[in-house]
């Protein structure tokens, strides 16, 4: 992966900065340029919006056959998470036993190492999720 390709997504991946449509108030993550509800009216009206990081597991899977970048990390959990702002995203669930994960589980974002470019390449960071405290 080119370093610039990673670097330009840092605000969203480090701090969960999405977009909020000024017209209808809907929050989008990953960030979008145009609100699919308001379309033309939303052009230039999509403001940065930081997600709380809190969400609920809507579905999950345990990956046993990982892609090359995740070699040696399997088994690990990937979940479809509904954020409290109403948008959905895909991320790993960590810091718990794999069999504790269930649909409806409350989770919160944490900042972690995601993958690296080989042994001596750049290390890429971003969000993962863990069981919510409260």
């Amino acid at each position, binding site marked *: 992966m080119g370093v610039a390709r990673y670097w330009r997504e840092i605000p969203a991946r480090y701090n969960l900065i999405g977009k909020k449509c000024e017209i209808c108030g809907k929050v989008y993550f990953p960030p979008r340029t145009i609100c699919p509800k308001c379309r033309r009216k939303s052009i230039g009206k999509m403001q940065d919006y930081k997600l709380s990081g809190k969400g609920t597991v809507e579905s*999950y*899977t345990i990956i*046993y056959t*990982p*892609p090359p970048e995740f070699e040696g990390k399997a088994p690990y959990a990937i979940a479809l998470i509904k954020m409290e702002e109403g948008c959905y995203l895909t991320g790993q669930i960590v810091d718990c036993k794999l069999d504790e994960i269930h649909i409806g589980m409350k989770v919160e974002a944490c900042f972690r190492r995601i993958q690296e470019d080989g042994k001596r390449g750049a290390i890429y960071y971003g969000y993962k999720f863990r069981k919510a405290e409260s």
Partner: protein
Amino acid sequence: MREVAVIGIGMTEFGELWQKSFRELVAEAGVKAILDAGIEGEDIDAMYIGGMSTGRFIGQEHVGSLALEVAGLEDLHIPATRVEAACASGGVAMHQGYIAVASGMYDIVVVGGAEKMTDVVGGEATNILASAADREWESFFGATFPGLYALMARYHMHHHGTTQEQLAMVAVKNHHNGSLNPKAQFRREISVEDVLNSPIVAEPLHLLDCSPITDGAAAAILAPVDIARKYTDKIIKIKASVQACDTLSFHSRSRFDSLPAAVHAAKKAYEMAGVKPSDIDVAEVHDCFTIAEIIAIEDLGFVEKGKGGKATEEGLTALDGQIPVNTSGGLKAKGHPVGATGVAQINEIVMQLRGEADKRQVKGATIGLTHNVGGSGGTAVVHILEAI
């Protein structure tokens, strides 16, 4: 718009074809289709060829030109276009060919699809297939392509009570059908236990819930119905050709137990063809994973949402069922050379409607449907065909 017919079909055997190059696969499928249609090279006005990732599988882009050269049509300088929509590349090539003929722009069009997937080694094929998903917001975080369908499977199981055994039954049925198809990659029967005992790829999906890595090519020749009679009396009319799209990423969809693009395409296709789901005699659907077939038969309206698992268990979609699905063996057993799949589905339905499907023939089939999906549902293409 003119009425369009399929006047010829052809495909290679599907499988790990180490002795055959991409070029040879394209040539073999194309030649078979041209001979089947009874056309000459100079009759051809245009070509569309589906290929998902020729650049990464064999380091070769620009395969429109390659296909033209393979066909020996360079002196005619006809337009030959490569079409890409991940695993729906073949279906979208069919749709482009349909538009070209229906519009009156071209008369005879060759539609092809091909993928040479076994020239790369190890996990590379899996990594290439992951490019059908959202690289920045799904794959980056460790989601694999089977992983996204696993999320669908778990969601469907949780909300509709679909079971692991019902998923396995899709693979068992499709392997049975594949055992009757001489072109299928897997021509052996498997049991529910075989599926459940195979290694887990992405829970709840096991290895035998997944379609394989395959080499293969398929082609179809399209012509306006009125001109078609000049070449053949086995005319299969395209009653509907519809493509619909949705978000690239699975998490941005409006539903997780359905592919909204497929629902949309199916609805428009039934309207265009003037038929109902119950009028369909045979269907080829995109079973890249077992859960995908269960969701497909719901999205196509063969059964209510949530009832796909139960219907499979009860044999509704079996070869002798009310609506036989994936008589070819589907992607699961026939094989899934991604760019070729959409055109291979057309091959099977045309054979069924001509009554040429031999041991897997659905008796009296007159209306057939194909359902081809790209990625986790970012593209869906539905065709409805009828023997006239």
